[in-house]
């Protein structure tokens, strides 16, 4: 039986089987490649380190740019977008919070297609982020809502099907999008 996660992205040769209650990094990677992403801009995040960033470092189709501070990603992604290239910013929610002014100025006010994948550090995947006992996690979605940034929670493989259409929409409308990674990918 088809599920939302059996999209074109999921049928890519590198994708892993869809497992209820699990999140496979290879499925996320297949989805971002299917979205036309060529560059991944990142400061390491422990939530996505082993299951997502590590395989990206080995992927020949994605170019990883390691930056020193997360707001650099916003400028680099914009320069790439002006050049017709797509990029994904892969950071931790603390780096997102540190980059608010860049996201405000570039992504929101200048309406640039900044695509962010944000690891929720120490988040309990069985809770919605707004109900997290951790203040830093709890405020992420309300901040994105106040900024008018579209966001999607990626907690299991079934959620991965949201990625490709959301990135396509972000570039088509020239607007930012955020994917909140609520569980460490395996």
């Amino acid at each position: 039986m088809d599920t939302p996660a059996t999209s074109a992205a999921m049928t890519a040769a590198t994708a892993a089987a869809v497992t209820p209650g699990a999140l496979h990094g290879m499925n996320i990677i297949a989805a971002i490649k299917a979205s036309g992403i060529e560059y991944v801009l990142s400061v390491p995040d422990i939530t996505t380190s082993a299951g997502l960033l590590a395989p990206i470092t080995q992927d020949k189709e994605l170019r990883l740019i390691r930056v020193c501070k997360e707001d650099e990603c916003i400028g680099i992604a914009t320069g790439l977008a002006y050049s017709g290239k797509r990029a994904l910013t892969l950071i931790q929610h603390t780096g997102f919070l540190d980059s608010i002014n860049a996201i405000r100025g570039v992504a929101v006010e200048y309406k640039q297609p900044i695509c962010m994948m944000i690891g929720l550090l120490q988040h309990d995947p069985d809770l919605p982020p707004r109900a997290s006992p951790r203040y830093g996690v709890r405020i992420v979605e309300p901040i994105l809502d106040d900024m008018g940034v579209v966001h999607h929670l990626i907690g299991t493989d079934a959620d991965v099907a949201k990625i490709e259409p959301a990135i396509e929409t972000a570039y088509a409308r020239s607007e930012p999008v955020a994917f909140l990674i609520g569980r460490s990918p395996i």
Partner: protein
Amino acid sequence: MMKRDECFRVLARHITDEAVVATYSSAVDWVEINPRPLNYTSIGAMGLDSSHGLGLALGRPDKRVVVLQGDGSLLMNLGSLVTIAAVAPKNLVHLVAHNETYEANGGHPIPSPKVDFAGLARAAGYAAAYDFSDLGVFAQQAAHVLERDGPVFATLHVEPSKPLIYDYPSLYDPAKRKAFKAAWQG
């Protein structure tokens, strides 16, 4: 010690189809001296100019990118020196106007006027780094700085300028961003 606008007049003699990324006082001087579609002045957040420049350089390796950054801006994004050096775009020229002040924010001094920006760039791993304090020497070397394989860095030791008029609505005009994108992708 040089004057920034005089340095930029020298620079303008050598600029053809490069993207020129400039902000604040550097942008005010540059767009007055050399108004053109390939000027990129919508940075969105102070300090991100060097990161925008890196994204443009990555996105169009067949073209050259010149970043005109202020010392206060670079201090807000010093890590970008390391990121740029690691990526090592051959087509990026990074010039910093070192007037020792936050000129656009009331002329207050930067935390230390002694900071050696070219030394930092050299230590980060730029292909070349220069200091210019004499306009005649800069005029003699400008073509070489712009043409050699990068990333190239140069500190322009300049005086604080006369009071400028910061026409931000013009610098951040969405129509100019659109024109830049068309020219850059053309």
